[in-house]
């Protein structure tokens, strides 16, 4: 097990709200291999975003450990790039400046003069060539997330943490962004792939992108099951969704999510 890039063991997180402490995550354990793409799915309120906050270093767990490369995680760090659902970019910096700022934070070896070149290169990669001088408020939600991905990639971190990055994007653009991320992450097979933890509530998104899916159960958040995604890479959505295996696999995941919900439904509204 020591080969895992990220090792989460018996992680327990308590939230304090209105002076009452409640258990957001309880004894969550799983590992993420180097270069592996792992999605965490679950109903809202299952603690999947809390889990990511712990990995980001923004939240201190009540119990258990998180290790990266065998070392205990402490606080934030620039070996992890993050894409949030909102406000990954600073609204007062142009898109290009945002990327340059990210590069400055994580790559001390890169000279000031080279940052602009790298920023342009990644803007082109995400299809935002020529938009470098725009402020985030001048871009659509989908373009903002493209820019956020460009920054995370330009920072060249070994680990990428993505917290429902496409949830606020309209259906058509979401599909385009998923494919962009898939292509960028799969790469040309020469470069080493990044280790990704991707939080989502979209089953199809999780299947398309991931090597492994962690299904969380709510109240408290525990791991229901860890499922390996059996489909070959490089993947193409069009090819994938046609197959029977895809439908079967999707149903299996759905039942994992829904069985759990059916068992637990007790008047609480459940949003997938």
């Amino acid at each position, binding site marked *: 097990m020591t080969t895992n890039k990220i090792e989460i063991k018996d992680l327990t997180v308590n939230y304090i709200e209105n002076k009452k402490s409640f258990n957001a995550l309880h004894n969550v354990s799983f590992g993420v291999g180097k270069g592996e793409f792992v999605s965490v799915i679950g109903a809202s309120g299952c603690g999947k975003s809390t889990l990511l906050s712990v990995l*980001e*270093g*923004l939240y201190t767990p009540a119990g258990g450990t998180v290790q990266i490369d065998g070392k205990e995680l402490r606080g*934030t*760090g*620039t070996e*992890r790039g*993050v894409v*949030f659902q*909102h*406000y*990954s*970019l*600073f*609204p*007062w*910096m*142009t898109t290009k400046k945002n990327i340059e*700022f*990210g590069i400055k*934070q*994580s790559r001390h070896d890169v000279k000031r003069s080279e940052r602009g070149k790298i920023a342009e290169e990644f803007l082109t990669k995400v299809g935002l060539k020529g938009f470098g001088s725009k*402020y*985030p*408020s*001048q871009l659509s939600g989908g373009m903002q997330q493209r820019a956020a991905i460009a920054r995370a990639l330009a920072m060249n971190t070994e680990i990428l943490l993505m917290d429902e990055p496409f949830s606020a994007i309209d259906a058509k653009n979401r599909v385009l962004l998923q494919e962009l991320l898939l292509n960028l992450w799969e790469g040309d097979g020469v470069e080493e792939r990044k280790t990704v933890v991707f939080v989502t509530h979209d089953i199809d998104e999780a299947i398309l992108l991931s090597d492994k899916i962690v299904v969380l159960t709510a109240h408290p958040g525990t791991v229901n099951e860890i499922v390996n995604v059996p489909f070959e890479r490089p993947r193409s959505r069009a090819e994938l969704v046609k197959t029977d295996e895809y439908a079967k696999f999707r149903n299996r995941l759905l039942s994992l999510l829904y069985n759990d919900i059916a068992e637990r439904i007790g008047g609480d509204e459940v949003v997938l």
Partner: protein
Amino acid sequence: MTIKKRYLRIAHLLFIALILIQFLPDQSTKDVFTNSLISFAVGVEVIVLAASAIIKKEESLALLVDIAGFLYVLLAVWSLATAKYNYLNDLLFPAPGKVIHQFVLDKDKIFINIKSSLRTTLKGFFLAVVIAVPLGLFIGWSARIGSAATYITKFFSSIPPIVYIPYGIALLPSFKSVSVFVIFLATFWPVFAGTMSGVLGVDKKIIDSAKVLNVSKPEMLFRVILPASLQQIFLGCNQGLSVSFILLTSAEMIGAKDGMGYYVKYYSDFGDYTRTITGLLVIGFVVIGVTFLFNKLQSSLLRWKR
């Protein structure tokens, strides 16, 4: 824009009316300097026509032309009531030409006074901003939970700064420094309060976003928190600036030996109401000019906001 929209405006008719009015015989017993008024009006009209040929946006042109129209009406009514029909007491109400003539005669003296007023205001204002903003950032950021600082600020900003003048006179070596001190206080508290409320209002998502980039503490304060609270800071600055001019002119009328407030007070003591009104109008233009420049700075620094 069509030629019609560009040049056929009511304001130009008003200009012609104003000029025609000037050919009526003067009934005032004093010299009313009709020629000065005519030259001024022609100057304004030339500028408006030149701008009409250049300005691209229809709304901005309409705004400029409308303002000119108002000005012509004002000058026409003013000259009718004074120079032409002498309805008003011509000692208390100088004709417009006379005020314009007086401005031209006194312009060197007036510019010296404007310079002195602006220097005092800007000294106090910038000193306050330079201290209040970093302090507000620092305290607002470190005391995110405690609001003690907010209450203390509320107390101090509730004291009208003008009441510091007598104490300032006892405390400080010159009346100039008292003015700077009072303007400093008048600007410091609103800017400090604005900065703190800005810092406390920064979206947690933005702060998280900065934290995961591992920014250093100075970077967090000056590259993240500062721009994120800039709008609130500007609110405080605007408040400080408008109070500063009130205080400055009041202070200058109390005890200064130069400045625009002094100019107005000095000549009204002698019953020279032409110069008094000239001074009032000049103060209006100076304040508008400074506010305009400041707003330009603000919208340029906040251009990323929509």
